[in-house]
């Protein structure tokens, strides 16, 4: 494990876990969560509670469009974990979105309730991700990206050969058609909300722990991390599996929400485009990034929905500009200026004179 302190991007000095546990004699304060983080954690918990009550107070149309938001949030968080923390830029995560959706379909065809099949979709994707990672990890950097894309295409081309899963034209999902639409809408909404909350909490816990430290070391300098004893391949594979599972669950929600699946749509590279856009705009490598990015993306989507392909052109242009001129995204810029962290995963050395004026 690498416990070597490395200066982070924002200039604060992260202190190793051992040093954090030791009593401090210098009067400096080694902290993880600042006052703002604790307040925001409370606010986030409150927000989840309010969102959970939404089906009782809002129209079905609102909750239905919120499902899309949660799905995008899950996918983007998973892509952020992969690229922002694991250093693996993939344009092939739609492989697992598709496999997740088709897993739900397969179990529903066998008579299982699709909602019960959701965790199985995540599990199946994690299992599929093991052989996938053997192949994809042969490639590095840019070539990893295109390689994952090819693998996603292979999954699509294999799945459309199964006539029992609808073949090339897709299939509608059995098992939910008899259910009251309002109840089904609310259940879908709660499932999406639960998964989104679990995803964010899971990312936070993963990045706080030993794996998070190892991953950060790998991302910053793979060779140095390896020399310090980090099991680089294992850490990367773990992140890859978690990310696949998350995307699989998101795919499962998609098929439950639309009650049908179409292979070209569910395996579309567009999902990767959305994930990448959200993470880049929000801030890559920050757990808060996908949350902020998904809100911005969702707002843009509502705003530009009537403009057809111009909408994608504008998204592409914003993505290009963001990648060049705002590499840390919106959240990175905010946290740099204010020092606020919603999900503190590192340790900070807070000395009274280094605190920003607002926190003194």
């Amino acid at each position, binding site marked *: 494990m690498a416990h070597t302190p490395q200066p982070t991007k924002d200039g604060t000095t992260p202190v190793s876990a051992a040093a954090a546990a030791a009593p401090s004699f210098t009067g400096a304060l080694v902290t993880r969560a600042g006052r703002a983080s604790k307040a925001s954690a409370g606010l986030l918990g409150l927000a989840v509670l309010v969102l959970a009550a939404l089906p009782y107070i809002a129209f079905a149309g609102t909750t239905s469009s919120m499902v899309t938001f949660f799905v995008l949030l899950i996918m983007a968080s998973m892509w952020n974990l992969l690229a922002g923390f694991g250093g693996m*830029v993939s344009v092939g995560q739609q492989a697992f979105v598709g496999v997740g959706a088709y897993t739900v379909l397969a179990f529903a065809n066998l008579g299982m309730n699709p909602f019960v099949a959701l965790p199985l979709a995540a599990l199946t994707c994690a299992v599929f991700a093991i052989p996938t990672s053997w192949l994809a990890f042969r490639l590095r950097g840019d070539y990893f990206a295109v390689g994952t894309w*090819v693998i996603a295409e292979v999954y699509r081309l294999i799945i459309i050969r199964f006539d029992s899963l609808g073949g090339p034209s897709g299939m509608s999902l059995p098992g939910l058609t008899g259910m009251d639409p309002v109840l089904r809408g609310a259940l879908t909404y709660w499932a999406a909300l639960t998964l989104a909350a679990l995803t964010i909490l899971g990312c936070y816990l993963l990045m706080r722990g030993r794996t998070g430290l190892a991953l950060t070391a790998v991302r910053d300098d793979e060779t140095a991390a390896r020399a310090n004893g980090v099991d680089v391949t294992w850490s990367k594979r773990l992140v890859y599996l978690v990310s696949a599972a998350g995307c699989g669950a998101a795919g499962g929600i998609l098929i439950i929400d639309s009650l049908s699946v179409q292979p070209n749509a569910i395996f579309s590279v567009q999902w990767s485009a959305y994930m990448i856009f959200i993470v880049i705009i929000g801030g890559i490598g920050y757990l808060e990034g996908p949350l902020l990015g998904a809100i911005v993306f969702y707002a843009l989507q509502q705003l530009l929905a009537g403009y057809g392909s111009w909408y994608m052109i504008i998204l592409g242009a914003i993505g290009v500009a963001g990648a060049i001129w705002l590499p840390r995204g919106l959240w990175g810029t905010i946290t740099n200026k204010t020092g606020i962290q919603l999900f503190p995963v590192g340790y900070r050395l807070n000395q009274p004179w280094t605190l920003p004026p607002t926190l003194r």
Partner: protein
Amino acid sequence: MDLLNTLVQGLMLGGLYALFAAGLSIMFGVMRMVNLAHGDLAVVAAYLVLVLLGGTMFPLWLVVVVTLPLFAVIGYGIHRSLFSRSLKAGPLSTLLVTFGLSIIIQNGLLEGFSADTRTIDMGVLNTGAFHLNNQLSISYLGLLTLVLAVAVIAGVQLFLSRTRTGKMMRAVSDDADTASLVGANSKHLYAIATAIAFGTVALAGIMSGARSSFDPSIGPAQLIFAFEAVVIGGLGSLWGTLAGGAVLGLTQAFAAHLDPSLTILAGHLVFLAVLAFRPQGLIPQRTV
């Protein structure tokens, strides 16, 4: 005889893939970057030729002669304005910029030309063929594409090994900092590599647009075939790319012979097999 025909068709298809892949191989060899908009640029070239042929009285050869240098100039400009900035920011930024470009191009073409499929009419080139006997025929277009692929790859190889600019480009590829000490301008040289890549992919797009129909959404598929040819052949090796294109073309042709619905999947599976068992490619080489 049937087998021989499949072999010939596969080789000619491989020539087209190699022509697509040459630009990808050059850009990876010189600056270790992958342009995710590579296939979409080929589609843009095909549409440009279509528009020029329809809107002006220019003959086909003149349109092609105008389009290729135009693409090279665009490539140079895009490199100096976008790619050089993103290369400085790191590999992640380059991928995101080219992916964004790909989305912009696809949707821009969709807005301008709709999703209808088109074909470039090259007259006798589209339809003509050498009929060697009643089972084996070699189309003019397929043969021309294969010849062009070999000529482009040989030409770029000669350029890199013989000319001063080509040698400087290899030096910059090996070690940009040291090369700059002896006067190499890496930004300019990288932009020239991009210009060559844009010019060759435009040619590939035009040949492909005459061979089969195209629409704004086929760019990613062409990128993937080109990428597979590069990886099968061996990263950063131009002759390897030609071999990789041939392997991919032959695989697809023989798979199509067995079951047309297996064509694309068989190509992908050969690519994955190469990744699993021979990740360095057929002709491993690190220098261009």
